């Protein structure tokens, strides 16, 4: 439609304001048509991509490697520093699990303010990183004889901790020296 409009636009515009109004009308229509077309295309691509990812997950495959975690400003939680800066954050190379483990799901039931939120979100990427590192640590300690249930408690504490975002961002940035207090205690 926008092509037609551009083709149909008068080669010689009327003088003065009428010509400017033609520009306004044609211009806004073409801009909306192009960006509207892109909206539909991207929506369609997104839908197909998500369907494929879901199929891969159901089929036992892993989610696309390197799939980035969007840097969202989580509802009801503080955004990580990278989100504040508007910088894209990617997962640390591993897949983003579509089916969280029971422990992570339990932890995700609480956001930092203690309010109940749906499992799996909403989390800022930094908080997700905090939970991820807590899970990793849990697995390591369980192998070393950590008592049953203590891992879930640590993960839950990571999710509940008001400083989880900051701590997770530090871990995310490759500064594991800033060990999480809750795990040090554990």
């Amino acid at each position, binding site marked *: 439609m*926008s*092509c037609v409009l*551009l083709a149909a*636009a008068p080669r010689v*515009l009327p003088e*003065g*304001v009428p*010509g*400017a*109004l033609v*520009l*306004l009308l*044609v*211009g*806004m229509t*073409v*801009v*909306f*048509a*192009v*960006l*509207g*077309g*892109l*909206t*539909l*295309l*991207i*929506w369609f*691509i*997104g839908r197909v*991509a*998500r369907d494929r*990812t879901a199929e891969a997950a159901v089929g036992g495959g892993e989610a*696309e490697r*390197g*799939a*980035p*975690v*969007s*840097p*969202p*400003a*989580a*509802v*009801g*939680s*503080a*955004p990580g520093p990278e*989100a*504040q800066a*508007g*910088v*894209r954050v990617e997962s640390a190379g591993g897949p*983003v699990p579509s089916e969280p483990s029971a422990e992570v799901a339990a932890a995700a039931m609480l956001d930092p303010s203690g309010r109940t939120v749906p499992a799996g*979100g*909403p*989390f800022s990427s930094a908080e997700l990183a905090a939970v991820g590192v807590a899970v990793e640590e849990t697995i390591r300690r369980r192998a070393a004889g950590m008592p049953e249930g203590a891992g879930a408690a640590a993960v839950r504490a990571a999710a509940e901790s008001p400083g989880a975002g900051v701590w997770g961002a530090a871990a995310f940035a490759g500064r594991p020296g800033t060990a999480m207090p809750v795990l040090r205690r554990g």
Partner: protein
Amino acid sequence: MAEFLGWIGELWGTMGFENLVWQQPVMWCIGGLLIFLAIRFEFEPLLLIPIGLGAIAVNVAPDLVAPPVGDAAGGLYHYFLYGIRLELFPPLIFLGIGALTDFGPLIAAPYTFLLGAAAQLGIFVTVVGAVLLGFTHREAASIGIIGGADGPTTIFTTAKLAPHLLGSVMVAAYSYMSLVPVIQPPIIRLLTTKQQRTIRMEQLRPVSRRERVLFAVVSMVLCSLVVPAAAALFVMLMLGNLLREALVADRLSKAAQNEIINIVTLLLGTCVGMNMHYSMFLTWGSLKILLLGAVAFAFATAGGVWFGQILCKLTGGKVNPMIGAAGVSAVPMAARVVQRLASAEDPECFVLMHAMGPNVAGVIGTAVAAGVLIAILQ
């Protein structure tokens, strides 16, 4: 003695003092003001410093950008000719912008494309306003594009449609871009209620690499097909973005994000400054352009917020209408303004990434608008 005095007289004649007119010191002051604003208040320093110095330089030695005579090297003429007049710089800047831009928020919420489209209202309303003030259609289009808040696109359009206005239009564009945090908040507050400003939006979904790559290719093809007049901008923008998202051309992506964009920004700013000769800049037209630039920014912001209101209604209050204001493509400043306003009303309301969607859509929208204007008027 007489011979010596004659020689001194000749030497004096070769200096710039003899032809000095009052407008030149005025332009030095304007150049100095731009440098002061950049250093003191950090208003777009990467651009205003070279622009300011270029403005002073061309009003000290106008021959800097004059075509060379005979075998002379020609000062900085060739930078100016190839960079601005022949439009080498804007597509290169777009390459860097593409490599720096994360289109993820836009892909995650494609409807924000429409907010980026609505914010282009400022461009076209200003075209009407400029014609009312006596500018020709081509000049009006060059002035209107200021409302897109996109420097390279403004240069691209103005160099094609009204090159004699380049200096004034660029100064207006970059001045207002640096003033986005001042211009936008009152307009946003005027057009939204406190309740609307505190609307919390749902978290954006993760976007896969496949989607990002497809987005770059598909949008480049579609935009270039529909508006070939601005294809140079789309191609370079999406090439930069593809380098970034492909994750296999890290070296090129980093070069585009750093070295290329830095060098071109430096040369672009200097050349724009050198286009500010007093004979072209100290006119009533420049004052009108400054005024129209403010109109353009105001309507661009308003257009986005108005469309945000429509989306808010259509979604039953799930879209914070403020994010429409980020449709002006001052990335990421406009999105930050929206976040700051949201945080001021509700410290736990985070809409930054949602505002980044229309913000980057605005870059594409402005390029489309520029393409339309060029296609019709050139």
